[in-house]
């Protein structure tokens, strides 16, 4: 009969009568979970090492660039050049992040737990893709913001100078978005094909590695049209081609950019089609996976 205050009473099972959120909230939950996954939040310390190493590198590079500019006055790297310079580092980041997002789920068999819930089949891959693209954009855009702040606080030209910097920064961020979309779409599609993370990572690096020599070969063939279209053969040079056409001076200061002739719009169209194609294949892949 002694009723002590420290006792935990088993209150039994409680039914839930509160609200159940709709598709947008569910998509958001999945998207945020994906974004956390990429950076290792909610996971072991080991899962945080690589992503944060890469984040550390890009931030340090941006800080050094900003410091050199403020001290020496020389622009080592423009905003738009930043994603290009970080190209291979970005590829390695995708090669680790994309398998973490989708291959792991394929292997562990967790997908039936998702698809037995009120979740549209297409929402799972789309939320994962959006999470990866966002992570890449933060990775490539964040350091640009560091460079911008460094410049904004050290320039002598006042508000006018800051405004000019901002006009340089915005195309750089847009360009980072293009990189993020192309790399993310290709990386996630490759990773979704296998449950083995090592295979997925190798496959992603291979897609970028194997296509680069093709560009080299096409670029030296004795036909001008082929040379100008050569850069379509690899995702990295394709994005560079779009940048040459759309950003011009901002990307290749003083230089000529890639010799793509008058095919700029074609490069842009190709990039759009590449991303769209990857998304279509990704959705088809998950239509198949969901019924297993």
């Amino acid at each position, binding site marked *: 009969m002694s009723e002590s205050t420290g006792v935990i009473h088993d209150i*039994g*099972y*409680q*039914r*839930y009568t*509160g*609200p*159940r*959120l*709709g598709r947008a*909230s*569910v998509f958001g*939950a*999945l998207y945020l*979970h994906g974004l956390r996954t990429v950076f290792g939040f*909610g*996971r*072991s310390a080991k*899962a945080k090492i690589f992503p944060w190493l890469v984040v550390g590198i890009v931030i340090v590079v941006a800080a050094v660039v900003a410091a050199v500019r403020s001290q020496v006055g020389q622009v080592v790297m423009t905003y738009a050049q930043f994603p290009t310079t970080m190209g291979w580092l970005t590829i390695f980041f995708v090669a680790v992040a994309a398998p973490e997002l989708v291959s*792991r*789920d394929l292997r*562990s*068999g*967790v997908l*039936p*737990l*998702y*698809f*037995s*819930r*009120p*979740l*549209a089949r297409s929402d799972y891959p789309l939320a994962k893709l959006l999470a990866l693209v966002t992570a890449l954009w933060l990775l490539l855009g964040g350091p640009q913001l560091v460079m911008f702040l460094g410049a904004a606080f050290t320039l002598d030209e006042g508000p006018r100078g800051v405004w000019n910097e901002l006009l340089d920064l915005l195309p750089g961020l847009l360009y980072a978005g293009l990189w993020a979309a192309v790399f993310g779409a290709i990386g996630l599609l490759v990773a979704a094909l296998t449950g083995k993370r090592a295979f997925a990572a190798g496959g992603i690096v291979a897609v970028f590695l194997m296509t680069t020599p093709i560009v080299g070969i096409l670029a030296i063939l004795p036909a001008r049209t082929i040379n100008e279209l050569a850069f379509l053969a690899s995702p990295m040079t394709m994005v560079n081609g779009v940048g040459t056409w759309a950003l011009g001076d901002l990307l290749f200061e003083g230089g000529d950019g890639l010799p793509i002739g008058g095919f700029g719009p074609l490069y842009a169209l190709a990039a759009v089609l590449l991303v769209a194609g990857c998304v279509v294949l990704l959705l088809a892949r998950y239509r198949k996976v*969901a*019924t297993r």
Partner: protein
Amino acid sequence: MALIATESLTKTYRGGVTALAELTVVVEPGIVGLVGANGAGKSTLIKILLGLLPPTNGQVRVLGLDPTTQPDQVRARVGYMPEHEALPPDLSAAELVTHLGRVSGLPRTVARERASEALRHVGLYEERYRPVGGYSTGMKQRVKLAQALVHDPDLLLLDEPTNGLDPAGRDAMLALIHRIGTEFGISVLVCSHLLGEVERICHTLVAIDGGRLLRADRIDAMTSATDVLAVEVSEGTEELAARLAALRLPVRRDGRLLLVELADDDTYDQILGAVAELDLPLHRLDQRRHRVAELFATREPSHV
């Protein structure tokens, strides 16, 4: 309202394999056992109930909803525990169940609360913050059950929930399922190829074989009519049989045994009285509760 109702439900996979053939069954809320050998069509039926697979033919209703046209409404009210390994090893049980609760549409804080509640109900306490990869099979099964429970479904679909468990683990899991079905007020469909296991906790049994319905009934209806008393006397079996028949008790011979259908407790007294009057040496008198398996066995003459 029926919990699950199917009518002429047929599923033929590409390649001509028929997983379900003209399955017509109606089950009422409660704990339902779905039994059948491996490949009988249990998993196919579950996938159709979840709206993951479209049936080739026929009608299906779950909680009064059609999973082929309203899959999201069905899935919002159903919890599913798959047969196979289904947990990412690097996430903690708390993190995983919370996340899946949110995917079921629970708000963030509610999902976290209900996740720890669900894990507590299945018997996971402090270990829920450790990565699932280090769990025993029994703990993993509990996490799978907790994730099916987190969004407070009206129906649980459990596919072989005792798979890979040792005898003690099986008993604990069955007790838990029984508790969910009775105390929690959630209907449960338990799939198993082990009839002896599910008949202990179920109210209703549905047996399928080769995609066809063998029998579906309430378990008390299956067993009550078949409880018999087995009487064995060392000598004078014929005399006793005649005497019992004279007492209007339905008697059958089964080798050296007399089988008497048990009507009520008086049957005992009548048999004992008859044995005493004839002064026969009684060897044994016990109640035989027919195992449900025998009921199904007699229903399948084609399988001899």
